[in-house]
């Protein structure tokens, strides 16, 4: 074999590092959006590879719905502490009070959609001109058409018809005042690529990614962790199952999957065997309509 052979994970890593450094080089005030999920944890490792031994040229920003898994929040705080990097947390709760928004109600009540308001508020508060996110094109068909540098207007809106052509590895981050960019370094990674990278890099994840017993309620055939935040019907069936989370988001819209996968290898084996997509298995928010993601992105979501 050619000795100058670059494995697919090395190629994906090189591309992601290049994108992060373009963000650092082209923008005045970038931020890395950190959720505590595996994709943003991967972004943090890539940022270490891109900028060490220097400091990150951006803070980590978490838009906290207040309904997150405590395990993810603890992980977030410990990680920022260990890295010695700045963590900014902004709460959806505060935005609700400040902007007098109505708290969603009913069976599918979730603050997930309200994150957009807090995100836009934070962008304004700190003057962020670029937010790095962990979205991947394999997740969803609207994301399949997303750019690596995605220009948003001052309302954060994504307009598929206004997208800039993106050629070679040349990213155009020029924006007018008020606009901002979302940058997606792991656009070309799949769920499995992320897990294989986590394995190779020996990254420690929050334990909710692995099997554990948890009390859940069954909603539309999906297992939702019980918490104070989730809407309950008197007739909801409550069960205790061995589960893990395939994605980690807001507790009110992230479903669990039944699993006995206890480490990275068994998780990888499970994903290879899985017949259901990552978002299909775990996201209530995408199921609400066929174009749910497209609509949310147009409204300023990731």
């Amino acid at each position, binding site marked *: 074999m050619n000795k100058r052979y670059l494995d697919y994970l090395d190629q994906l890593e090189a591309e992601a590092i290049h994108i992060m450094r373009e963000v650092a080089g082209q923008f005045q005030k970038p931020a890395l959006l950190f959720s505590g999920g595996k994709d943003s944890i991967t972004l943090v490792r890539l940022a270490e590879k891109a900028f060490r031994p220097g400091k990150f040229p951006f803070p980590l920003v978490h838009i906290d719905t207040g309904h997150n898994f405590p395990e993810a929040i603890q992980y977030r705080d410990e990680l920022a502490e260990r890295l010695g990097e700045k963590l900014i947390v902004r709460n959806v709760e505060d935005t609700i009070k400040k902007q007098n928004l109505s708290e969603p109600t009913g069976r599918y009540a979730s603050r997930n959609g309200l994150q957009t308001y807090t995100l836009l508020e934070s962008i304004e508060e700190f003057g962020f001109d670029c937010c790095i996110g962990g979205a991947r094109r394999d997740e969803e068909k609207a994301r399949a058409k997303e750019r690596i540098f995605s220009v948003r207007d001052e309302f954060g809106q994504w307009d598929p018809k206004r997208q800039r052509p993106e050629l070679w590895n*040349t990213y155009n981050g020029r924006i007018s005042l008020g606009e901002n960019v979302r940058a997606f370094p792991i656009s070309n990674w799949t769920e499995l690529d992320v897990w294989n990278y986590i394995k190779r890099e020996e990254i420690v994840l929050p334990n909710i990614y692995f099997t554990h017993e948890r009390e859940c309620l069954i909603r539309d055939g999906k297992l939702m962790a019980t918490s104070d935040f989730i809407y309950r019907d008197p007739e909801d069936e409550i069960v205790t199952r061995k589960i893990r989370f395939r994605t980690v988001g807001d507790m009110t819209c992230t479903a669990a999957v039944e699993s006995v996968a206890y480490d990275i290898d068994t998780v990888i084996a499970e994903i290879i065997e899985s017949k259901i997509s990552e978002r299909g298995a775990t996201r209530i928010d995408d199921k609400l309509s066929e174009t749910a993601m497209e609509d949310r992105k147009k409204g300023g979501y990731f």
Partner: protein
Amino acid sequence: MDILRFITAGSVDDGKSTLIGRLLYDTNQIYIDQLEAIESSGRVNEDGQVDLSLLTDGLKAEREQGITIDVAYKYFSTPKRKFIIADAPGHIQYTRNMVTGASNSNLSIILVDARNGVQEQTRRHSIISSLLGIPHLVICINKMDLVGFDENVYNQIVEDYKQFAASKLAAKDITFIPISALRGDNVVDRSENMPWYEGPNLLEHLEKVPVSNDFNLDDARFPVQYVIRPHTHEHHDYRGYAGKIISGTYSKGDKITVLPSGQTSTIKSVELGGKELEEAFAPMSVVLQLEDDVDISRGDVIVKQEENLDVSKEFEALVCWMNNKPLRAGAKLLLRHNSTETRAVVRQIQYKVDVNSLDNIMDADQVQLNDICRVQIKTATPLLLDKYENNRANGGFILIDETSFTTVGAGMVESITHESELNYMI
């Protein structure tokens, strides 16, 4: 396991969406919930099977208008390779999208309807692939089921295509495969209907085509993206130049020149993730430290002294115009080449290229959206350029509108006037 990036070009009628759907479906990349979404839309083909073309169906905005706006990216992998598909719409008004998708691809799949043979669209897609420097072409003669899997039909199309390719295309590696995307013949499984075809099926070919040689490892080019200066006690004097090796190789001890300044030094270390490497090569993202304290910032390029390279401000290029407002001679634009951005003026539009025939159209004072033209450009800042045909990674650039900041053109360098030559002319 490595990565193959390929583009599929074709219109709805060619069966392009069906082919992609087939590749994803037969390699088990389609999940139940995605199939259910299609089934619930109620659209099935004449055999009562799920219409695989719907797997690549796009946005609401596109469905409403019955068009494809944009390049969509799809992913699948086999134990041998990870594949990234740039799925570009193929109508003539979407040259822009195909150029975009082709810019990052190593291979182009071009679909020919067996009933129609080589068409204008076949030639257009082939020519664009060739102009964008894609080294491998796969010509899939599709819908063989509709011509009775006839070997003669296939041979005639191959003959016609070869004749066209010989005079118009730069690509050296052209492979022909007779397929039926709808029925799956020769896509992932060998066709029992075409025993006369002895070559590989499409997936076998995609898995085997050699791509590691597609990276240029001869011409060392390292555009600096970012300077790492920790200013900590531990790393008090650390100064690392962060960037991606877009072509060539770099090792400790290499004698280097920084362009455009011309300062020289020696590589003290090549690092990735805090670890020193013996050697790094394209397309790795690394950090270089130098022996001497030289003044380097973003946009500078680190090259090898032995290459004796020179920067330039004047060059000629092919440009694909991507904006609704036409391009005129004298236009002032921003030009981004790797990590350098500079002002530029299009001094002359020499001719337009007919993408259906590769003929030159001389009378070209205005260039419209989706036109490809040859232009003379002058930049404010000197650039280290390569001819696109010699080094794809350093021969491409984009043009940006000075007020809207949108990307309005994609350029490929064809000839360069070096600074030193200009001096001789005076």
